[in-house]
């Protein structure tokens, strides 16, 4: 039920609509954006961060919740299984069953390697499945890989690693073609031309989509292909530590059966970390658009094994998370809603920004609007601004919402909210980790031979902010890349000894740094169960 304040405010949104539709809002200047971010973006709130005490990134800033996990004990402390007793023996072990892991497994398999995917939940229970808006690639005539590079580099605050970003944009059209050849149904016109739109911060319309099930359509196709190829997938099995040969090289992993609590040891010539993001750590108490297993496991495993983190202090808050009703709190409202024309409007029906600024800028502007400017709408458990969705039907014609963003329409209709006729309330939601493990162009993790990484667990491809549609792209480009490179490296590698010495050494470093923690990591799953009277451990 709408509150009286909401009903009042909607009237104002409706009153200003016709006038707002006459003109495009002004974009902010570089200086305005900088000032806005510094004052309002959560990345700049010092109290949300802590300092890393040990390892390659010692002394650097990290979100407090992630810092706590980096400083926690290994789950294996005191009861590690004998790593030399091998249960699984493969060439390439892929940890993670999302888009990057599946793409990597497909390519490693095609390269002749014996591959296995292990995944904490089911294959496809991943942020890939939930990506709605689309995937970028410069394939239209007025566009080019250089233009894509410029948009992404600038949108990421000129911090991306150039060789990684080059790979991303140069292999983007190939990635779309690869997916299309696997049978992914992209939105096309009757002649086969891709229907592409803008995303925040794009200078050309290069967003390819599969309605607003873009990630789901990609993920279910990749999953189907993994199964068609007969690649073994061990579900409900998480990796709790990597194993090394006693020196530098990664040689496998200790796995945990999530249902029986049994350990297993997997020996592998090469290992690919494709464990995804960290939304379920709820940095700064934000709700999240991420899937249940997004708990930064790969960052912990990789860091203990000697990998360096890059931009671990930059987090993406998606500007338009659902702010109301409570049942949808934090759910993603795809950026495509703004690509299709919906404006962001405050309580008084005023536009306060161009709807297609980059995500960090848009999130900061909404936080300012609901905070210092006090122009947000009260939801009872927070506040939000309007995303004026009925504009889409006026711009694109009746039926546009049902055709282009059916998932959004369905999500709101479940709660009797018809976004075709009524605007929706949004507020930023924790969406993506911009940073992650530092990799080379071939997806190998710098400083850790035998270890590869792809997908959200990687840092550096996007710099300090990622554009819409470049994540679905990076899981394909770098997932495939990691699969090929890991398979090639496996051919030239003999199986190694398996040891957990590096885990013990890391614990000693923590002790020497005076860090003591009762917590264990990786987290594996968020602690959502409420035990009102405490509860057995």
């Amino acid at each position: 039920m709408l509150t009286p304040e909401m009903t009042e405010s909607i009237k104002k949104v409706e009153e200003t609509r016709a006038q707002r539709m006459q003109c495009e809002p002004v974009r902010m200047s570089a200086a305005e954006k900088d000032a806005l971010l510094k004052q309002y973006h959560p990345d700049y709130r010092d109290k949300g961060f802590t300092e890393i005490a040990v390892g390659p990134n010692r002394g650097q800033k990290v979100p407090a919740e992630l810092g706590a996990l980096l400083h926690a004990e290994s789950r294996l402390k005191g009861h590690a299984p004998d790593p030399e007793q091998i249960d699984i023996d493969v060439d390439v072990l892929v940890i993670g069953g999302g888009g990057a892991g599946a793409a990597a497994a497909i390519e490693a398999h095609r390269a002749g390697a014996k591959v296995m995917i292990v995944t904490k939940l089911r294959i496809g229970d991943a942020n890939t499945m939930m990506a709605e808006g689309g995937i970028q690639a410069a394939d239209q005539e007025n566009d080019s890989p250089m233009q894509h590079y410029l948009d992404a580099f600038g949108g990421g605050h000129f911090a991306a690693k150039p060789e990684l970003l080059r790979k991303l944009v140069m292999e983007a059209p190939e990635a779309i073609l690869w997916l299309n050849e696997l049978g992914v149904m992209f939105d096309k016109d009757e002649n086969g031309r891709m229907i592409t739109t803008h995303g925040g911060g794009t200078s050309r319309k290069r967003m390819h989509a599969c309605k607003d099930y873009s990630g789901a359509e990609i993920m279910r196709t990749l999953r189907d292909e993994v199964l068609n190829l007969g690649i073994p997938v061990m579900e409900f099995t998480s990796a709790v530590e990597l194993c090394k040969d006693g020196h530098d090289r990664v040689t496998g992993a200790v796995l945990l059966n999530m249902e029986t609590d049994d350990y297993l040891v997997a020996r592998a010539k090469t290992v690919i970390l494709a464990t995804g993001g960290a939304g379920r750590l709820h940095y700064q108490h934000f709700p999240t658009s991420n899937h249940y297993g997004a708990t930064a496991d790969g960052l912990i495993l990789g860091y203990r094994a000697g990998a360096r983190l890059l931009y671990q202090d930059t987090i993406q808050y998606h500007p338009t998370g659902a702010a109301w009703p409570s049942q949808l709190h934090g759910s993603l409202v795809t950026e495509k809603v703004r690509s299709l024309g919906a404006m962001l409007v405050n309580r008084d029906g005023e536009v306060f920004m161009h709807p297609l600024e980059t995500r960090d800028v848009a999130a900061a502007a909404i936080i300012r609007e609901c905070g210092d400017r006090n122009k947000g709408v009260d939801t009872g458990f927070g506040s939000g601004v309007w995303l004026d969705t009925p504009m889409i039907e006026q711009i694109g014609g009746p039926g546009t919402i049902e055709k282009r963003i059916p998932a959004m329409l369905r999500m709101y209709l479940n709660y009797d909210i018809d976004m075709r006729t009524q605007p929706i309330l949004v507020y930023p939601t924790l969406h993506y980790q911009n940073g992650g493990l530092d990799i080379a162009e071939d997806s190998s993790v710098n400083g850790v031979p035998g270890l590869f990484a792809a997908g959200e667990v990687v840092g550096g491809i996007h710099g300090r902010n990622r554009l819409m549609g470049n994540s679905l792209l990076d899981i394909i480009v770098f997932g495939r890349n990691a699969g090929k490179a890991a398979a090639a490296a496996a051919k030239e590698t003999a199986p190694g000894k398996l040891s957990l010495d590096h885990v013990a050494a890391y614990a000693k470093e923590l002790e020497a740094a005076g860090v003591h923690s009762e917590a264990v990591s990786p987290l594996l799953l968020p602690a959502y169960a409420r035990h009102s009277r405490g509860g057995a451990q």
Partner: protein
Amino acid sequence: MEKTVDVFFFGKKYSVPASLTIMIAMEYAGYTLKRGCGCRHGFCGACATIYRIKGKNELKTCLACQTQVEDGMYVASIPFFPTDKRRYDIEALQADQQVMAQLYPEIYSCIGCNACTKACPQNLNVMQYIACAQRGDFEGCAALSFDCVGCGCCSVRCPAGISHPHVGLLARRLTGKYIVPKSKHLEKRVQEIREGQYDALIEQIMQKPITEMQELYNSREIEK
């Protein structure tokens, strides 16, 4: 005090706030979910759930993350359902009627009971898309099944043992790969890149100093 309702998880009664989804209500009751919980936002199909409201005959299906609790709700989540996916080489297939007959012949055993459609938490016309598949209308099947999240509620209810989500998926892959026209502009761009037409240009932009990149970025023209 927030309004509460009584719900029964696997037959056991819990009092939970009325505003919660089934999934969050289970966590409120103290459950640590492993199976039956995936994306939590209605896209992955992990949380297929059956329920019946006390005193009512109808057995309902839903996604636990997208459904609000009701008073007297008897709830059981479906941790896993053995749907039957057939293996195939997509490269070796042709988009003709025989494909379905070979891979999923049981679709021809459909008795038209429509239980699949009634069970679909996405409100898809499942029986209709199976009918499309039967007659080789893959595009129709693809369109009608496109919003499928693969929860399997349809298959749970099917007396003919059809694995509907896999049928829809096959139809979509055939449609995406073989039926919808190819994207010539895409193939052309891929070819240009393979031939190295952009190698020098991308190298140039990579080498530019940051100040020049900032200038380029801030003054770039944005397509209307």
